[in-house]
């Protein structure tokens, strides 16, 4: 069982060029990160490329890990999520067919609907459950589909300012719940 401390130690070793630590980190975390890439990109070849790029980034950024204040898994997940979202957005703007991309995302129920929530995820899931369903949905879409305010405004048929106001309110509510 790989612990948080183990992963932290691997990243610290990577920062000084330890390749063995890199392959250990990969073994311990790649399935998790690949799952996330597949979920976001919904395309195996792209998810493989993204994973490759993510680990290149992780290797290069290992030295700056200590200062960013994130737990090691969150750091890895955030790099993965952000990288995949960048790719997804590039794909959308390249094809110029937002609707298609959105539909693909809609069609996939996503493994998270089926899998059992782990302990930490329960809290965010609980708190999201306390938001109005479409607002929780908007937060999830922003995080997992990389939807922008523009896209969300179109999706929910409300003006841009309105969507921003109600999403921000929802986020404040979410924080209150998460902190309680």
């Amino acid at each position, binding site marked *: 069982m790989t612990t948080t401390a183990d992963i932290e130690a691997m990243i610290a070793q990577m920062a000084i060029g330890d*390749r063995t630590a890199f392959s250990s980190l990969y073994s311990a975390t790649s399935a998790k990160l690949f*799952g996330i890439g*597949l979920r976001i990109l919904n395309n195996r070849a792209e998810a493989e490329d993204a994973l490759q790029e993510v680990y290149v980034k992780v290797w290069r950024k290992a030295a700056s890990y200590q200062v960013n204040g994130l737990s090691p898994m969150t750091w890895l997940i955030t790099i993965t999520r952000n990288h995949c979202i960048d790719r997804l957005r590039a794909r959308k703007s390249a094809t110029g067919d937002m609707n298609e991309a959105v539909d693909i995302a809609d069609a996939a129920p996503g493994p998270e609907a089926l899998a059992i929530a782990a302990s930490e995820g329960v809290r*965010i899931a609980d708190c999201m459950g306390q938001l109005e369903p479409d607002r929780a949905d908007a937060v999830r879409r922003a995080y997992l589909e990389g939807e922008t305010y523009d896209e969300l405004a179109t999706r929910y048929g409300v003006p841009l300012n309105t969507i921003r106001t109600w999403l921000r309110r929802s*986020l404040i509510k979410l924080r209150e719940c998460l902190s309680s």
Partner: protein
Amino acid sequence: MTDATEEHEAMALAAEYALGLLTAAEEKAFEDAMAVDPELRASYAQWAEDFAAITDRIAPVAPPKDLLGRIEAMLFPGPAKTEKKSLLSRFTLLPAALTGLVAAAAVLLVVNLDFQEPTTVPFAPEYTAQLTADDQSLVVLAAYDADSKVLRLDRSAGAAQVGRSLELWLVVGDNAPVSLGILADAAATEITLSDNLAADIPGGVLAISDEPLGGSPTGSPTGSVLAAGPITQL
């Protein structure tokens, strides 16, 4: 504005930043603010932790077995690897044109790539480009290390048609594409760029076109562009 409102404001902004909902300008402003404000940094870190927990419900999936090897080959070229010698056969660089002297000259600048001393510095790419055909029939990942001027290409899908060649091009602004050579059949390859070409990498676009066997006879792409992607900083 009351303190509580300001606090809410900052907290919502940190969440928007974590979700990638801010405009480029807002993002930059937030990062600048975060750099000097530990509370804002903590607020962002908290959101990052909480949002990351959304992925707890995403099932892990084992990536393909050879992926680690591909990443390691990219990061650690390994000075003693015998495959160094075979790179020329993997990535045959042919003068792209008999008549296109400019393009041919550009190719000659990179043609000595395999006769260099094996690099001992780790491959640490600062730039990457993803070249993907619309139908995913050709997928090539490019990574570029500015220190060594090495451009690595890793093809995960696609191949030249029988009797045809895939040719790699560097396009800068409105300038004519410059040939970087013909892609051989192997999946992974690397080329070392000349100083001139290296300078063009940031902000350039890489493209792959379908060409007659041996490459474009004119020095410019003659067949359809199968895949292209902007070079972005990692």
